């Protein structure tokens, strides 16, 4: 892809704790400048692991990372500690699922944002405060001046997530990683946050990687969707093609198992079985044990991502 801001090539992550788990087995994707990519998948599919690898948040001792991650020309996996500090927050920053846990409970929202800002930019106190207030207003927190001095626990869930977004964007990063930012929120607040993210992305022109298990949320915000399963990307394409013209049986199954208004009164289509154990991945295609179209080739050879028509997919027997 031309003018790609982020290039991930053959990223492999293995956790060597008490038990070995192959969390990612060869993930490659690009994100263009100003693009919103969604990583969609169930728990354990490697979405969050991918995001954390991009910021190198995994404990170095017990994690083995292979492959390459290039963000804005920088090779992230070979940065030293000082460069990494500059990279985190300045080039790339992250929003977490639980804003209640991501903030430090003993400092006010304003203190934490000012600290982050001053770590990256050489500003005097009053300019920094003005920047923070401006950012708080930008994420539509009412009475920003008052909220500046509140502690995280004094805010509601939706407000805390807005503050989290403000904190992530305070240094104007080029790449924003959003790890299930709306999962813990109510539906009426979820849509507010999604719309806010979309608006901020348009204003700032940053790239966003959005991780979710909710296809509805993915469709609302993203340009492209990459579907993950057992540590691999199994299908990737623009939103409309994934929704209408997906070819991978897993994507199809996911789309069919969504409960809609038309399902009432009839049994739901399901994908039988459960996602595989990452400590003991099946040989060949990881989805083969749950796939109805699996053949002998599927259990022996691993399919690679191939581009055909609207989407790229990794499957030997794609759905017509």
């Amino acid at each position, binding site marked *: 892809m031309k003018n790609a801001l982020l290039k991930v090539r053959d990223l492999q992550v293995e956790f060597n704790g008490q038990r070995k788990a192959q969390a990612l087995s060869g993930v490659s994707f690009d994100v263009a400048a100003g693009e919103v990519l969604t990583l969609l998948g169930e728990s354990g599919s490697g979405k969050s692991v991918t995001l954390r690898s991009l910021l190198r948040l995994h404990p170095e001792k017990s994690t083995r990372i292979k492959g390459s991650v290039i963000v804005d020309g920088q090779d992230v996996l070979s940065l030293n500690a000082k460069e990494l500090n500059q990279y985190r927050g300045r080039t790339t920053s992250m929003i977490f699922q639980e804003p209640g846990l991501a903030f430090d409970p003993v400092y006010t929202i304003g203190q934490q944002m000012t600290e982050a800002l001053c770590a990256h930019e050489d500003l005097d106190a009053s300019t920094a405060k003005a920047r923070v207030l401006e950012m708080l207003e930008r994420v539509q927190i009412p009475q920003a001046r008052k909220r500046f001095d509140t502690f995280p626990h004094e805010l509601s869930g939706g407000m805390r997530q807005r503050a989290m977004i403000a904190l992530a964007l305070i240094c104007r990063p080029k790449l924003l990683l959003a790890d299930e930012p709306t999962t813990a929120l109510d539906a009426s607040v979820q849509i507010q946050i999604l719309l806010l993210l979309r608006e901020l992305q348009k204003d700032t022109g940053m790239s966003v990687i959005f991780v979710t298990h909710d296809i509805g949320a993915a469709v609302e915000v993203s340009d492209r969707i990459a579907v993950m399963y057992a540590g691999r990307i199994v299908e990737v394409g623009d939103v*409309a093609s994934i929704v209408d013209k997906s070819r991978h049986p897993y994507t199809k199954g996911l789309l069919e198992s969504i409960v809609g208004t038309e399902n009432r009164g009839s049994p739901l289509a399901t994908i039988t079985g459960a996602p595989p154990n990452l400590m003991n991945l099946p040989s060949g295609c990881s989805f083969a044990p749950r796939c109805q179209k699996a053949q002998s080739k599927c259990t022996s050879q691993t399919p690679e991502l191939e581009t055909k028509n609207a989407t790229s997919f990794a499957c030997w027997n794609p759905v017509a």
Partner: protein
Amino acid sequence: MIKQTHSTLISEDRGGPAQPLLLVRDLKKYFPVRSGLFTKEKRFVHAVDNVSFSVSKGKTLGIVGESGCGKSTTAKLVARLISADSGKMVFDGDGVVEYGGIALKEFRKNLQMVFQDSFASLNPRLTIEQTIAYGPTVHGIPAHEAKSQARELLQRVGLSPDQFASRYPHELSGGQRQRVNIARALAYQPRLVILDEAVAALDKSVQAQVLNLLQELKQERQLTYLFISHDLHVVHYMSDEVMVMYLGQVVEKGPVERIFNTPAHPYTKALLSAIPSMNPAKRTLKPPLEGDPPNPINPPAGCRFQDRCPHVMDLCRNVSPVLMNVTNIDAFSEHTVACHLNQGMRL
């Protein structure tokens, strides 16, 4: 299927088929808020405020609302896990824990609950078989019978007993644990099952499997469900009747198709349009509701939805609306709504 040998637990139908299985009247629960040492004023969280509903036999009542609206507190009050400040419950024609009514132990056998957190609701030191067999033995079923019944139930919920019976909860996946919770609830041969966000924590593909299982079990055993969820799609799929709650009060209640096709309360309308669209060409442009749900501590006088309502009038700030039949369709409809707009049309 469960053989007749286990029939000792089955409770007979007390009222007729037209008798609602559960009738709840004016349920109320205020939680006191710990206040400062010198503050005189006592403050209360109005968790559940005058909630009334009934569930017909063999039907599913869905309860929807945002977090903090009192859905789960209602479920806990119905199951008597916490006691209500006031209110009355009638189970199949008999008052619950009343003179001449149904005793609490008998009532609990008739009513079981499945919770959201499948891990926290299982005892980590009991195997799955022990977990399922425990309840029936408390109610006087011999241990070996309870055990064989537990294995049959495991088979029914799709977990092979040979493979799973001796495992512990931490050895199972979320979907499998939730199946165990369902099996444990069914071991009492209950007639009413409360599902409190029972599928919310599951992955989408597993969620569909569990929903199918719940629907099959309902058919097989003539169960009645109280289905609590914040996912409107799932509620639409499961329920026959829907009750919408906001800040501890019921704002709308009616048959599922009426609620979803012709919602009458502005809050219900907003909830329905907050569902993300699945069409990239028709993205949501404006959030249907501004702000967060307000604080349930000492809520405002009048309608509790007034601060977020697009149609707010002076009347709404002073007088709280009561549940009344939706007027513009027919006078005898079961579709009720608590909104002054509806009552305005009547005048």
